[in-house]
């Protein structure tokens, strides 16, 4: 996708201005008040990221009224800290108990939890923190240098481009998932099917809701992920523990080995690049970047068999990608006023109440706020590493807690988190049912990752496909006439060709296999 970098390489900002602006930003962000608020945000973000089910959205909404009392920049720094702090924290539960705190941590579960079971939870968490720090620093620099030209890229991404990208994403997951090929395919389709539940965007008609108002907006991701990942994992663990002694209680060393570093460093760099690119695309860009980073790592690796069995690259790449992407996603918000995620939509609202309109004029009208926020992001990343590295020892010790005490605690926190989303017991019931379904599927050797990918990408594909056709008045040429869409479709066609070529079939690699067979 050279088009993105072509516009990035010609930033309209003079170098001198950049340094002056960054100096201004750091002078704002380093004031004692703002430093403290940043720390509070990062700390809260880490805490809620670690608690399964409780996401940044509910936390930010609870703290919104408080932020109105603070100075605009102080409030924003705190809310931003919660936002990216939760990205750090979310990987902790993914690694320790195989439960993604957010959509962006789904991929981290695959190899991260496997590493934990081999007694390398410390190494997995350390690389997640260091990779995130590197990615966050690079992303901050990109925002500072090229926010405005990059924002144009986000605007030019219309319905045909989205539809083609989602198609490419789904095809890539089918082609690259070899292992039990038809099982992976079946799981993707199951995800697509469940993704159709809810109100049809084009007609407003209710689909597969069976009269439940609770399903009108589709299945919520939180009960789905807590059920299919968390509860399924607990059921499987309880069963496993009857037959064998577990390995997760082995502690192992916390720090990385030289070999770990050698493997992880390029994965972190590539993950950062992919995250920086896909983070520009509002809606789905962050999640897609983690899957893309994982697949590319596996494709490039000399030992693809190790993936799914605790490969450190499988943690380093998606963790770097999601942090880069979530930080880059500030670009569409700050420069265009388009919030790519629900959490950022809330931060935008906070700015509005302070009388600041996010949009094209923020950079020139409120330079202290704009650059202060950017500088605070980097400072926040430093704080998160300082905060998280010593905590890793503590988290890993949690694994020593006997499982018979640990699993009721996890279930309790899940239930609290699920209930807090809508204050409804419906979500808890749903998670339990999905957990049982997930357990059955697991017994038949089907993995949840392709299922979730189908569930997340399917609705985006359908929505944008139909919107593009509405705009073209039913003419499918719109997908070929727009250059970016045409390129994405050509890539998708190439993937289909690879799928049918027998030579490639032999060398195709397993992307989604999580369990050593």
């Amino acid at each position, binding site marked *: 996708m050279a088009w993105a970098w072509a516009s990035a390489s010609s930033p309209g900002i003079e170098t001198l201005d950049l340094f002056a602006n960054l100096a201004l930003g750091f002078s704002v962000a380093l004031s004692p008040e703002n430093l403290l608020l940043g720390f509070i945000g990062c700390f809260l973000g880490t805490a809620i990221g670690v608690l399964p089910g409780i996401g940044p*959205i*509910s936390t*930010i*909404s*609870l703290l*919104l*009224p408080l932020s109105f009392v603070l100075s605009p920049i102080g409030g924003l720094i705190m809310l931003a800290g919660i936002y990216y702090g939760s990205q750090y924290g979310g990987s902790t539960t993914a690694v320790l108990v195989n439960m993604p705190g957010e959509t962006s941590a789904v991929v981290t579960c695959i190899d991260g939890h496997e590493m934990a079971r081999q007694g390398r939870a410390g190494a997995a968490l350390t690389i997640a923190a260091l990779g995130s720090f590197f990615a966050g620093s690079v992303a901050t620099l990109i925002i500072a240098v090229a926010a405005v030209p990059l924002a144009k890229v*986000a*605007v*030019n*991404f*219309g*319905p045909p481009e989205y539809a083609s990208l989602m198609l490419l994403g789904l095809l890539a997951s089918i082609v690259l998932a070899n292992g039990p090929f038809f099982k992976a395919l079946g799981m993707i389709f199951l995800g697509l099917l469940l993704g159709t539940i809810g*109100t049809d*965007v*084009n*007609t*407003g*008609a*209710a689909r597969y809701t069976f009269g439940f*108002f*609770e399903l*009108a*907006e589709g299945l919520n991701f939180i009960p789905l992920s807590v059920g299919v990942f968390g509860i399924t994992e607990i059921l499987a663990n309880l069963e496993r523990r009857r037959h064998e002694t577990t390995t997760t209680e082995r502690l192992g060393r916390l720090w990385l080995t030289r070999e770990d570093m050698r493997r992880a460093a390029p994965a972190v760099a590539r993950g950062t690049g992919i995250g920086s690119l896909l983070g520009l695309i*509002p*809606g789905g860009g962050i999640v897609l970047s983690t899957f893309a980073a994982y697949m590319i790592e596996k494709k490039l690796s000399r030992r693809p068999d190790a993936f799914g069995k605790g490969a450190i690259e499988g943690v380093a790449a998606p963790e770097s990608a999601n942090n880069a992407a979530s930080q880059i996603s500030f670009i*569409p918000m700050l420069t*265009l*006023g*388009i*919030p*790519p995620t*629900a959490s950022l*939509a*809330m931060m935008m*609202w906070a700015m*509005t*109440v302070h*009388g600041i*309109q*996010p*949009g*094209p*004029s*923020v950079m020139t009208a409120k330079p202290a706020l704009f650059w202060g926020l950017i500088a605070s992001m980097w400072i926040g990343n430093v704080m998160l590493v300082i905060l998280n590295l010593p905590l890793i020892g503590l988290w890993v010790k949690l694994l020593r807690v006997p499982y018979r005490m640990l699993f009721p605690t996890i279930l309790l926190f899940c239930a609290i988190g699920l209930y807090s989303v*809508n*204050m*409804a017991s419906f979500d808890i019931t749903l998670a339990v049912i999905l957990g049982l379904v997930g357990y059955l599927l697991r017994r038949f050797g089907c993995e949840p990752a392709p299922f979730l990918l189908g569930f997340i990408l399917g609705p985006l594909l359908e*929505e944008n496909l139909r*919107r593009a056709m*509405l*705009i073209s*008045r039913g003419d499918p040429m719109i997908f070929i006439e727009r250059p970016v869409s045409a390129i994405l479709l050509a890539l998708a066609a190439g993937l289909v060709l690879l799928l049918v070529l027998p030579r490639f079939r032999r060398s195709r690699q397993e992307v989604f296999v999580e369990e050593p067979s």
Partner: protein
Amino acid sequence: MNPKNVQRAMTSALSMVLLSLGVALLPVQAVAQDYPTKPITLIVPYAPGGATDTIGRVVADSLAKQFGKPVIVENKGGAASNIGANYVAHQKPDGYTLLVATDPALFLNEFVYKELPFSPEKDFDPVTHVMNVHSILVVAPSLGVKTLEAFVAKMKAEGAKYNYGSPGVGDGSHLGMEWLKNEAGGFAMTHIPYNGMGPTVQGMLSGDHQALIVSVVTAKPYIDAGNMIPIAVSGTRRAPGLPDVPTFAELGYPTIRLGFALGLMAPKGTPIAIRRKIADALQEAFKDETFQAKYVTGLGYEALASSPEEFQKFLGSARQDAARVVKLAGAEKQQ
């Protein structure tokens, strides 16, 4: 019968009636006088973070200050307010559980949904019309029009070539545009529904559609940057920061109501004295200077805090408009 006996019988009957009335009224009055004796819960029928949620929290803060009792906001989101509304409809009518309702819960859903497990009209008592949040019609610069007259003329001539966006089927933005289409004598423009206002705005910036009805607060930065051309605003006065943009009423469309109303609704049977007390408290709170500066002059909200009776009257006429407009938009009994 002896007239004296008749008189006595009548007197005793009257006093019985009065007594029983008094017995019935006394505890209510006592309850209303003491109200509130415990925390009040406001149910916001949307997920945290949206406009309704934020205004709901402002209302909660205002009431808490006036009453000196905690006011808790609980989010019960989903199904365009129906989950939260259904919950409140089945709570005790004691004034301690109130619904923060906007257009869908107030008068739209009964026409949009095939069946509801409650009646928005019969299962609620109105408390107060808190405020109106106004909207603006904006068009893409590529359309080359700057006035409502030119916009309508162009759409009547070649409207089939153009699209308008909305954050969803049956949303106020969608219904408003269909209302305008009808009032202006009809023109063809294709509706492109999105999933929320964020993607809708992005769609306009990337040229997917050329016209949109959106809240003034959301549109302002794009208008300032020249990415959207303001045509007309709803409401009785011009929007803050946009003194040159006329209202629909000024341009000869006095009946069009865009944007949304936000009010408090109580379960059916909530005493009128309690409802009045809440409305009066909010009326008092809205006099606060920082509130006025931030929300009225700053964001352009029309703060009302009307009496329960005024709110009832407003709902009656809004319901009639809703029935007509939902039909126009083809969103009737879809969901």
